[in-house]
């Protein structure tokens, strides 16, 4: 078991067992096979703590009622994503059909978040970032927010 998963198993162990059978929605959320280790506070499908390709990804959508997963200094006003505890800035970008989001890791492929059937948008963005990142880590540059306009 990778280091991160072992640590989280200790941290979230009890809750994981409790929700593994009870929260079907969290399972459906992680479409690519990684079981979501949701805590009871993560019932909103737009917020998540999952393991994907061995990496822990956490997401808190803008305006989430669950502030427990926010890191120190985060206001909750913007979408927050962390990969193995390192921040990945999520930036809004205006599109013909609405607002999309990009990150430093997937800078040319905006995803829709929150609108219509896109409640899993933030998770899809985070997964794509892990796909690009492979076995490397995010740097401080990835956590820096830039103004791309909406």
């Amino acid at each position, binding site marked *: 078991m990778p280091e991160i998963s072992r640590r989280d198993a200790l941290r979230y162990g009890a809750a994981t067992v409790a929700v593994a059978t009870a929260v079907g929605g969290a399972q459906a959320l992680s479409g690519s096979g990684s079981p979501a280790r949701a805590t009871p506070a993560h019932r909103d499908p737009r917020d998540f703590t999952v393991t994907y390709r061995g990496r822990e990804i956490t997401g808190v959508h803008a305006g989430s009622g669950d502030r427990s997963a926010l890191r120190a200094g985060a206001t909750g006003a913007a979408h927050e994503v962390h990969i193995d505890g390192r921040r990945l800035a999520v*930036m809004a*970008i*205006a*599109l*013909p059909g609405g607002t999309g989001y990009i990150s*430093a*890791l*997937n*800078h*040319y*492929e*905006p995803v829709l978040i929150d609108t219509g059937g896109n409640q899993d948008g933030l998770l899809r963005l985070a997964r794509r970032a892990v*796909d*690009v*990142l*492979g*076995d*490397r*880590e*995010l*740097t401080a*540059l*990835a956590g820096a927010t*830039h*103004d*791309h*306009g909406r």
Partner: protein
Amino acid sequence: MGVRKNARDLTSAEKAAFVAAVKRLKAQTTGRNYDWFVTTHINYFAAVGGVRYAHQSPSFLPWHRQYLTEFEKALQVLDPSVSLPYWDWTGDRTATGAPFTADFMGGTGAGGNGPVTTGPFAGATNWRITVSASSATSLRRALAAGGATLPTGTQVNRVLNVAAYDAAPWSSASATGMRNMMEGWNRQGANLHNAVHVWVGGHMAQQDSPNDPVFWLHHCNIDRLWSQWQTRWGFDAGHYLPPAGTAGVVDLNEEMQPWGGVTPAAVLDHRASYTYA
């Protein structure tokens, strides 16, 4: 006057000269070295001082035209024989063909998204990444991974057939106009520029995409396609929009930072400086 050739038509000597000049610029420790170009693209991708210069704006095409010229000039200081080549991805569409051969750009990443293993840019000893959102120090690619596809010639023609250069709101939200289809935020009918970054993957998918030398070949092709559009519709000032008075973007006669006094109007007709073969 320089002639920019299709990468597939370069001789072995021309490929070697281009690679050597790029590596010398990377090794340069002062001035506008390779990493200065990487950092400049990162800084100007987003809005600077409330103005969008390099992306999501009408000046996407002229800003990158000047960016390519500055890079080409930097290479020519090191080797006057070098011109930028272009990668015509409507013709060369495989992960193993030109320009991804071992004698030029090298191939895809190990395991589909890892370090490039072939060619002159494989491994951190040959080509060390220092400015990036990822801690990877070796160049990475994921050619054609995840179902990504390259734009087709039909899609290119669809973009070149659009008469209007750009349209309000002069951003990534523009629903009509050639520029936002070329750039690829408007994905209705065609997505040229963005889709190629995604197809290459690895560093090319990231904010720090110029870390992959194939960036220059891709953008050289985008500049060539704009030149084709200009050949059809006009190289004149009437074929850049907006003309004046638009906040947040570069109007025809406004300066493009960080290129000093260079305006879109100044770069529209490139034919006295370079042409495409």
